[in-house]
């Protein structure tokens, strides 16, 4: 769904409890409705799977950055210790590996941590000063918003309302929102 970046006519369903939201999401998905996104004040566990999101691939960014840090620093330490500035300490070998481990480890952690965080900012399009337009005033406080895509003419709001009503629906609102940029 992230390939959409145009303006969409959407239906916003508001809930007041995470369990209601989770069950409503599962019900909506089972009925074949297209979920644009869900907005919650905190991470609701299991919601990503209920919504059908794939596990994030940011773990790979972390792994690659960590390996780059470790191998890069190992090479740098070897180059300094054995080639560029070889110091003879009591005849000990210049290319001794164990003494290079701590700094290589720190470099791995450093690059992996910063790499993952900056990758998160990049893919989630988070940047300083970005204006956020919360769909519902209280979405960062205590309300949960399920956003359904009004895909085509067959989309029937009253049918959706009947489906979601049992999950303590607090409000239902139709709105045109720009998807893609707001994620």
């Amino acid at each position, binding site marked *: 769904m992230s390939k959409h970046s145009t303006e969409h006519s959407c239906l916003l369903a508001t809930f007041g409890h995470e369990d209601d939201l989770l069950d409503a999401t599962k019900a909506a998905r089972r009925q074949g409705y297209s979920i644009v996104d869900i*907005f919650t004040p905190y991470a*609701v566990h299991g919601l990503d799977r209920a919504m059908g999101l794939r*596990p994030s691939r940011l773990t790979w960014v972390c792994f690659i950055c960590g390996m780059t840090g470790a191998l890069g620093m190992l090479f740098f330490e070897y180059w300094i210790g054995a080639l560029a500035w070889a110091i003879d300490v009591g005849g000990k070998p210049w290319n001794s590996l164990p003494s290079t481990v*701590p700094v290589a480890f720190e470099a791995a952690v450093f690059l992996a941590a910063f790499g993952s*965080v900056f990758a998160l900012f990049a893919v989630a399009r988070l940047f300083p000063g970005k*204006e956020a337009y919360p769909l519902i005033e209280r979405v*960062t406080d205590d309300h949960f918003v399920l956003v359904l895509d009004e895909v085509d003419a067959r989309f029937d709001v009253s049918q959706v309302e009947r489906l979601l009503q049992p999950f303590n629906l607090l409000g239902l609102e139709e709105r045109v929102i720009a998807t893609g940029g707001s994620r």
Partner: protein
Amino acid sequence: MDKLSLHGKATVANPPTTEEMATLRPTLITGGKVPADVTRDICAPMDRSPTALWWGAFSVAFTALVVGTVAVTYQIAMGIGTWGLNRTVGWAFDITNFVFWVGIGHAGTLISAVLFLFRQKWRTSVNRSAEAMTLIAVVCAGLFPVIHMGRPWLAFWMAPYPNTRGSLWVNFKSPLLWDVFAISTYLLVSAVFWYVGLIPDLATIRDRAKPGWRKQLATIFSLGWNGSTRTWSRYETVYMLLAGLATPLVFSVHTIVSMDFATAVIPGWHTTIFPPYFVAGAIFSGLAMVLTLMLIARKVMQLEDYITLLHVETMCKLMLSMGCIVGLAYGTEFFIAAFSGNPYEQFLFFNRALGPFSWAYWTMVACNVIIPQVLWFRPLRRNLAIVFVISVVVNIGMWFERFVIIVTSLHRDFLPSSWSDYTPTIVELTTLVGSFGLFFTCFLIFARFAPVIAMAEVKGVLENAPRSLDHDSAPGDAA
């Protein structure tokens, strides 16, 4: 869950009753809070003007900081000769303070990262302030080696960069250089971990703040966070990764700090027990500092429903277990010294316990090993006054531990002609006072301007918002 559509009701198969939930898992947040209450309660101290109590504490802390700044300026202008060091005791107060403050930081990472990996939900009430404590403590710690250089404006020489002196590279085989990398990585990774955790809460502040400077700042730093589940899913992945990275990092940091000593051929330092001994001691002292700060914060900021007796008790148990590990390490050191047959080791430990610094040694044993034993008793763990006193006592004891390790190992050299004593000068004492001033000044500012409790995390563990069992027990649900 497939029964849902049949029943048309939002129920879970065999939902646990409230009583069952209470038996399975004790209530973390009391007072029957709902998410809106969490937002209001945690943001309330930020909305109010500072109280007289806050101003009082801030002036004391800031005065201490000014005193310390004067002391540091003086010693940099005059030179390190203003300290009580001599040729035999070449490290004393300064490195004691350094190790002490690094250690304080470790509990913050333990609570935020290690307990996250262990799915300890109680951590959500204390992790934000514990992480802030970590950051500030590591800054305090980092100042000491820089001051110790004597010419702090040349601190950048510690970085490996091409230069016109050779290039003269740094020595990657020295633990002191490992320390530079460990401490700076620790500071930066802790900072980014803390900030990432803060983003959703900053968005909450942004959305409820009236237009003004606070809203503008929150808008800048919340990075346009809007609570999208797509972002939450990635965010949770990254948070898990950061916890997984911070956990070995925190163990590596104090391991490397201990190697500053353990790789030197000084009796009392040259032991393989040092890395685990230092890590346990660090977490021990850090937990004590978290307790000291939390017991004050919950009272002053009316957070009794968030930081409950359960939290205090759990931290007491952790502190007690760490204290026992530290006590075991003290005993092991003596046993190994006696068992080694090495006369230098044997003399050192004899001298440590009965020599001129025996008062410091026994202060350490009393504060770190004997007094914390009262925490075995539940009524005493739940007595906040006693816990507060013990937390302060442990902090004192852990400061003395570093002092004992450093000074008693150095002051009796291999050659009796080199034996020496050590007394700190007023410059060293005021520098220590100044570091406490810096710590509390920063912490008080944090408590005023940032949410001291991770709202977005606490909302997820509220008792009246129980997760149905099938989502909670599913593997990998945090990823």
